[in-house]
Each structure stands twice: as structure tokens, then as C-alpha cells.
């Protein structure tokens, strides 16, 4: 499989009143054609900033690009002229946001927004664009698509709006879809519908970068998983391998804190302490203050990303005997 998107050493810093805030620190990973990659981590770990940053959707200032390249179809997105980038956004890479209600314009009808998206990228007349939009709404399972086209976003429920967003993201048949917590705002029964839809819609040619904190969703949908903690990638690997044999103590702890529906423990296993503030990260491994396996070296040096096997990386000194990953 060919590499579609290659993120190398991406660094994004926000200049705040309290000093520089490293939101993304030296993040590297890649996405292959047709692959579903899950970007996992707790709130504030930098997963959304990574995804928005690669499309240059982070306002600068206050944001600042400190390092890195993002290669997509052979071009560096971070250094592309704005007009060329615009032809990629929406057309080749589309985004599904967490809050469909705030991602769509409240002042324009759903149909107008779909038609505009099509006409912006394709030489197509309004009538044909309308027909195409209706067709896509039908494909994402929206009941009575003609009526929904004439509706304003506030007239639709969250689940229906997320279907509109998915239709909008898919309609130009992009090479990559970035979905930022696409089901977090939805109820579980509606989430099940949307996950089912994403699974059906995912074709061989489209890759999906799924950003989520829900390990259940990741398990269901992803081929490969990238785990972030405190602005850095700490582990990466194929889904089953990573879930069954997590190499980083943080991944292990994250998996242990998943609550199963069957059986119950008297006490839940927890990760003691709190995520460090991005304004004052510890000098060594950022997980060291909470890590049950930490030793002296962890508090002094930042562990590099070790390569355990092809596709399998972990940033933990416990993996020291392995070679260090080179950005490919």
C-alpha cells in the first residue's frame, strides 16, 4: 500500500500570556491509501491540533509552526501556496467535525451548503449539483432527502446533521477524510448508526484519520492506532497488536481504565496524578511522574520512539534494546 499522508516531526506552539505552549511536539506518523488510522489520547494531548494543523486550519498567530513537513501526494502541505491548498481542502482531504451544529452555517439551507461545496470544486451547474447532493443524502441514509435539502440545520437532529456532514465530506470522493470525534456529541444508538455508515462508506481508495478518545470506537473501526500523550506520539501499531500487547505503560493504563459491560471489579485501576500542563512539561518522559515503571533515566531524558517491529513503535525506555525509529 502506498503512503498517502506522511507527517514528519510536526511541531505547533501557541504563544500564550503564560508563555509558549507546545501543543504538538515532534509528531510523526503516516497514513496509507485505504487505511483507517485512529489518533487516540485524552483531552489536551494535541490530537485535534495535529489534525487541524496539517491542513493549516490553526490560526497563526497565536499558533506557530515550529517544525515539520506534511507530505500529501508528494507535496508539502505546510509550504503550499494558499490557493493550491484550497484546492486540496475539501476536494482531496475533507474534515468531519465533532459538532455538526456549529460546523454548518445556521443561516443557509442544508442544500445550499452542499451545492456550494460541489460547485466550489467541480465545473457543475446548480441543477446537477442539487441532484448529486440529493443522491448523496440518500446514500448516507437520510430519510426524505429532498425535504432535508430545503431545511435549515437547526431543523435537523444531531445524528441527521452528522449524516449531512458525512455526505458533504464524501461527495467529492476525497483521498483522505479527517474525522475529529465524529460521534462524541451523539447518543450511543445514533453513534452506532454513524459508525455503521462510516464503515460502509469507507471504500478502498479513501483513507480515514479518526480522532477519538473512545477506545471502543477505535477498536471497531481502525486498522492502525497512534496514541498521543502530552503533545507527543508515545505508541503506534496495528489495532489488534496494540490492544493485546501494549508496549507503553500509558497505553496499558488507558486500556485498563476501559470499563467493560460484563463483570465488574471492586476497584477500577487508575492512572494516579494528572496530565502535566503543556506550559510546564517535565524534563524527561512526560508520563514518568505517573508511571508505575519509571526509573531514574525516565526523569532525565526524553525517550525516543523505538521501533519494535515494522509498524510498531513505542516511546519508552523499557523498549531500549530496539532500534530508534527514523521518520520514513
Amino acid at each position, binding site marked *: 500500500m502506498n503512503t498517502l499522508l506522511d507527517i514528519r516531526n510536526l511541531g505547533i506552539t501557541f504563544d500564550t500570556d503564560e508563555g509558549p505552549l507546545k501543543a504538538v511536539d515532534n509528531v510523526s506518523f503516516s497514513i496509507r491509501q485505504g487505511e483507517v488510522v485512529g489518533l487516540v489520547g*485524552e*483531552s489536551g494531548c494535541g490530537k485535534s491540533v495535529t489534525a487541524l494543523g496539517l491542513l493549516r486550519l490553526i490560526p497563526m498567530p497565536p499558533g506557530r509552526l515550529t517544525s515539520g513537513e506534511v507530505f500529501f501526494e508528494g507535496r508539502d502541505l505546510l509550504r503550499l501556496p494558499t490557493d493550491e491548498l484550497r484546492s486540496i481542502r475539501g476536494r482531496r482531504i475533507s474534515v468531519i467535525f465533532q459538532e455538526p451544529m456549529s460546523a454548518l452555517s445556521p443561516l443557509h439551507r442544508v442544500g445550499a451548503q452542499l451545492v456550494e461545496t460541489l460547485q466550489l470544486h467541480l465545473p457543475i451547474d446548480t441543477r446537477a449539483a442539487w441532484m448529486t447532493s440529493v443522491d448523496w443524502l440518500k446514500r448516507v441514509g437520510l*430519510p426524505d432527502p429532498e425535504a432535508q435539502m430545503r431545511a435549515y440545520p437547526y431543523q435537523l*437532529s444531531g*445524528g*441527521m446533521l452528522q449524516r449531512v456532514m458525512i455526505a458533504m465530506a464524501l461527495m467529492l470522493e476525497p483521498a483522505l477524510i479527517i474525522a475529529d470525534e465524529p460521534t462524541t456529541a451523539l*447518543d*450511543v*444508538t*445514533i*453513534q*452506532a*448508526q454513524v*459508525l*455503521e455508515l462510516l464503515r460502509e462508506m469507507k471504500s478502498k481508495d479513501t483513507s480515514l484519520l479518526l480522532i477519538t*478518545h*473512545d*477506545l*471502543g*470506537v*477505535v*477498536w*471497531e473501526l481502525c486498522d492502525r492506532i497512534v496514541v498521543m500523550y502530552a503533545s507527543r506520539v508515545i505508541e503506534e501499531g496495528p489495532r489488534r497488536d496494540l*490492544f493485546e500487547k501494549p508496549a507503553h505503560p500509558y497505553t496499558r*493504563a*488507558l*486500556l485498563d*481504565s*476501559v*470499563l*467493560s*459491560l*460484563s463483570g*465488574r*471489579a*471492586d*476497584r*477500577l*485501576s*487508575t*492512572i*494516579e496524578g*494528572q*496530565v502535566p500542563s503543556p506550559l510546564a512539561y517535565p524534563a524527561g518522559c512526560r508520563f514518568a511522574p505517573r508511571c508505575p515503571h519509571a526509573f531514574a533515566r525516565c526523569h532525565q531524558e526524553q525517550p525516543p520512539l523505538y521501533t519494535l517491529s515494522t509498524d510498531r513503535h513505542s516511546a519508552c525506555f523499557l523498549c531500549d534494546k530496539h532500534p530508534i525509529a527514523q521518520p520514513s
Partner: protein
Amino acid sequence: MPPLLQIRNLKTWFPITSGVFSRTVGHVRAVDGVSFDIAPGETVGLVGESGCGKTTLGRTVLGLEPRKSGEILLGGIPLWPTRHQETLPLRRRVQMIFQDPYSSLNPRMTIQEIVTEGLLQQRLIRPRERGNAATRLLQEVGMEPSVLHRYPHEFSGGQRQRISIARAIAVRPELVICDEAVSALDVSVRAQVLNLLIDLRASHNLAYLFISHDLGVIRHIASRVVVMYLGVVVETGSSSEVLDSPAHPYSRALISAVPVPFSESRKRTILKGDAPSSSHPPSGCRFRSRCPLALPECAARVPVLEPITPGSARQVACIRKDEILDTSQHAKALLQGVFQ
């Protein structure tokens, strides 16, 4: 042991008004005839999706929403509205932890003021005892007493939720209503706060009404579950029974919809469409418009919440519950097509 809290046929309706004279044109039936009990020291999980009335129910028990009809009894004493002199001692007995730790703490009060306000109001301590009382409370929820004079904005979500818990347990309540108390927290912090709630339950003999949409959380903290859909209870029973072998088609769909890591086969019921509005619930069974097992009779009569076997604590409101719980081959074949 007599129940601590008894809810009898409780209804909370909100008027829908229209026009310049705000004429009432209909009602949102947020809670529409709910009955259940909570024993002293028991944790009851109230589950359902947004808009099912679970939060309104919790707020009505606390007297934050006026009820339309029905009864709420705390230790046999009818609640809300009570005369002013009677309100104070009842308030001491029921406390609440809210979902959003960012909006539920007054930003202009220090931590000490927040956690001791109830104690002063109830005249359980004198003003000069504030410092000692606050120190003790913070220690109980696992926080350093050095933070007493700080303000809420200086704390993370998990820390704030600990402060909310300290405030709730300060007056030694018998019942704490936890409305999505851990939903806003990240997984690693969520486990810490859940463990704290479990420890406090034992040390203070607390009963919890634990409102949550997260079935994993409910499984770990609640001994009994009440499942709500559009303002009514569709199923209730011990958490292991309900979550392992749900008898109501809605409970089945809800439980199967939760994505669980490490699960191999996905036997999943995908419900069609959205939940209808609770201002115009469907006739008969409210779930029938989305139910994969609905029959024509379901539109005609409202299913009664009744024990699955006479005398059982497990209650289900579905006319086909016997078929669903039937483990024979015939019944399995019936369900196979629907509950994939």
C-alpha cells in the same frame, strides 16, 4: 428495611407556550409516570439517551423542577413543596453532584467557602470552625488542604469534581444524586473519581441515584438499573441481569450499541431514526416507532411495567418480553433476524 426514597407515578411536564399571551399549546412530558425505590445505601443507575427525562427526574427529586403529579417520599416524608421550615432539614438529606464541574462551582468563592457553605446554612458548624471542617472534607476527597483559599478556575476538571463531591458530602446526606458526574472527565481521571465515590459510599453509607448514559460506568457503580425511554421506565432490575440479558428491545439496542474493545463478534441492533419528541410520544408503547419487534398491538395499548415472574424485582414494560427472555430454539430463531 424501608426504602429511603420512594418515587410513585411521578410526572414532570413542561408547558410549550405560543403567541403573545404565551398560551399553553402542549406539554413536553419529560417524566411521565415513573415509579421506583432506593434503599438506604443502595446505588441505582438511571440510564437512557439524551432527552429521555433522566436529568429532569433527578432534578425533580431534589425539588429543582416542579412536578405535575405523583409522589416523592424521603424516609416516608413527602417532598416538595414543603413549608419553608421543613425544607432545610430535608435539603441536608439529599445532595447533588452535577455533570459540568466548570459551571457548577461559583467562580467567586474560594474552595473553603464552597465546601462549607452548606454546613453553615444548616448550622452544623460555627463560622470559626470553617477552616477545620474544610480541611477534613478535602482530605476525605483526596485533596491537599493547602488549596483551601484558592478559586475553582485554578483546578482541572477532575479536581473540581472532587470539590463538588466534598460539597455534597459535607452535610452528611443519605442520598446523593449524581447527574453524569463523571461524563465530562477523561478516562484516567474518571476511574479515580469513580473509586472515590465507591469509597465514600461505604464510609458514609450513602445511597446514590447515579444518572448516566455510560453503561460501563453504571455497571461498575450501580447494583440496580432503571432504563428510561421518552419519560417512562422500560426496564428495571439488578445491573448484572439487565446488562447481561436485557429483556426490553430498547435496552437490548442500547447495550448492543456500545462499542467495546476486544469484542469479537458484533451482534448489534441498529435502531432506525431518532427518538421521537416527548411532546408527541407515539401512542401505546413509546418505543414502537423504532422497535424491531413491534406488532400492531403495540400501538393500541400502553405496556405495563410488570415483574417478569410474579414477585420478581426485575420489571419490564413490553408485551413481548416473554418471547425475548425465552431461551428455546424457537425464540432464538425469532430474534436472530432482528438482533443481528
